[in-house]
């Protein structure tokens, strides 16, 4: 009986501990949400009034009333489209090679270690590499192509690692089952590994692209223009991107440009959320297809 009572008291303390901690965790979660809400409210308050059709369809200008981000928006779309075009096949190909084909030897481990390290390299370093390699050595100039290739280099390690994770999540028993039916290695990759791994690969790619879309540093390093009064027509044209345009407006003393920056951020967020939504849509569609 005495023991029972002691146990009861102990239980109370443990329950209180549990409640206190779960409240703390809830507060920790709310911190993130709160900051996000403040950020969005602040940006919308500053920028929503300035966000109109004229803003989207105009080129930059010294007069805030006439300024817009047409060239930056198209620059971003151009660069993102090319980056996706480059990174997806190279990234997925690398991941498939490393996971399904490469023998487990020193070279493979060396490559793997380097990919992991490259994923942590600051983006400005990729900017300088892009400047030296693409803009100067390959003489691509400060073009859309050079910008996309720079962002490709930056995104690749992240995409490769995400795709490798997705490939590793495919049960080995499925591979063995396919091999036992006389499938070749490529058929195993194509028909067993890929269908299961594709959703994870897409998610990884989109996350890497979302990071790339907001990067100003590497684009500044290869000197993407700020005042661009035309839309890039082909990959060799000069360009600017949304983060640079926003950065430029933020750094101006006049209050009106601050509002323009906020409106630009809203546009950037919309582009980003659209990309994420597309990723989720694609992922769900593929998942459904494999489960049916």
């Amino acid at each position, binding site marked *: 009986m005495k023991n029972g009572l002691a146990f009861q008291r102990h239980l109370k303390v443990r329950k209180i501990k549990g409640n206190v901690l779960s409240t703390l965790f809830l507060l920790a979660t709310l911190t993130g949400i709160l900051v996000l809400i403040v950020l969005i409210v602040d940006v919308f308050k500053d920028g929503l009034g300035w966000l109109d059709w004229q803003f989207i369809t105009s080129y930059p200008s010294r007069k805030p009333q006439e300024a817009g981000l047409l060239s930056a928006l198209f620059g971003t779309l151009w660069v993102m489209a090319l980056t996706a075009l480059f990174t997806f096949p190279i990234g997925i190909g690398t991941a498939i090679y490393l996971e399904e084909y490469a023998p487990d030897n020193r070279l493979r481990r060396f490559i793997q270690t380097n990919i992991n390290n490259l994923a942590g390299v600051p983006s400005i370093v990729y900017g300088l590499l892009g400047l030296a390699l693409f803009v100067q050595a390959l003489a691509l100039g400060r073009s859309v192509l050079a910008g996309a290739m720079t962002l490709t280099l930056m995104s690749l390690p992240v995409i490769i690692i995400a795709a490798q994770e997705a490939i590793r999540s495919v049960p080995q028993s499925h591979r063995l089952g396919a*091999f*036992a039916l006389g499938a070749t290695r490529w058929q195993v990759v194509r028909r067993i590994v890929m269908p299961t791994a594709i959703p994870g690969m897409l998610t990884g790619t989109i996350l890497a692209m979302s990071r790339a879309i907001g990067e100003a540093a590497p684009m500044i390093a290869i000197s993407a223009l700020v005042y661009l009064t035309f839309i890039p027509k082909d990959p060799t044209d000069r360009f600017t991107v949304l983060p640079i345009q926003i950065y430029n407006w933020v750094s101006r003393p006049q209050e009106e440009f601050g509002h323009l920056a906020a409106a630009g951020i809203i546009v950037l967020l919309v582009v980003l959320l659209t990309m994420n939504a597309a990723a989720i849509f694609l992922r769900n569609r593929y998942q459904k297809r494999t489960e049916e």
Partner: protein
Amino acid sequence: MIHATVSLEAKGLELWYGKFQALRGISVVIPHNQITAIIGPSGCGKSSLLRCFNRMNDLIPGSRVKGEVLFDGRSIYGADVDPTEVRYRIGMVFQKPNPFPKSVFDNVAFGPRVNGIQGNLEERVEHALRRAALWDEIKDRLHKSAMQLSGGQQQRLCIARTLALEPEVILMDEPCSALDPVATLKIEDLMKSLVEEYTIVIVTHNMQQAGRVSDMAAFLMMEEDRAGTLVEYGPTAQLFTNPKDKRTEDYITGRIG
């Protein structure tokens, strides 16, 4: 036992995984249209031996094979032999049912598709499912996911998947160890009906099962360095009632293992 022709034959077979020798000096003759059971304590190399018969060990990095495995008198480890060709003619069913996350139909059609087999795929799939005693249960669910089937159905689906290629031999690696007794009996009945057309080699740790289904039995044990060797091989009835080797007797009567 009626005299049967030879389907598979191992001659002085040795297997290494890296520096570890898994099998030593295995010589067995697997007869046509019979069920041969490979029995022995855990870790003695039963499954490793089975995987030598369709070159699945090739997929394990660092594995090496010495000696010979003959299939219809031809070495399957010859330089001119493509392992996919071997696996096409010698099917395999695994310990845990491993249907692909695809529809029932696509599971059975997988083998014919990857091997580029011409002809009516629907008929082939239906025939394989009928042969695996699964058709009546799932003919209305052909385009539903195979993952929704019960464990026993999944395993029969995996057998049907193998049958769709009309192989000559079916290797079974403890096919019932993940199944309940009812599902186990269904698979055993199925094996007895399949052996009219196919040669079956089954690894099992279940003595009763070996006694119930097999015509021939090979008893493996590991030596001190953990390499598996063949202790005794012969007709199941003889091995179980009148073993020649003391170790076989001890194992069968449950004294070791």
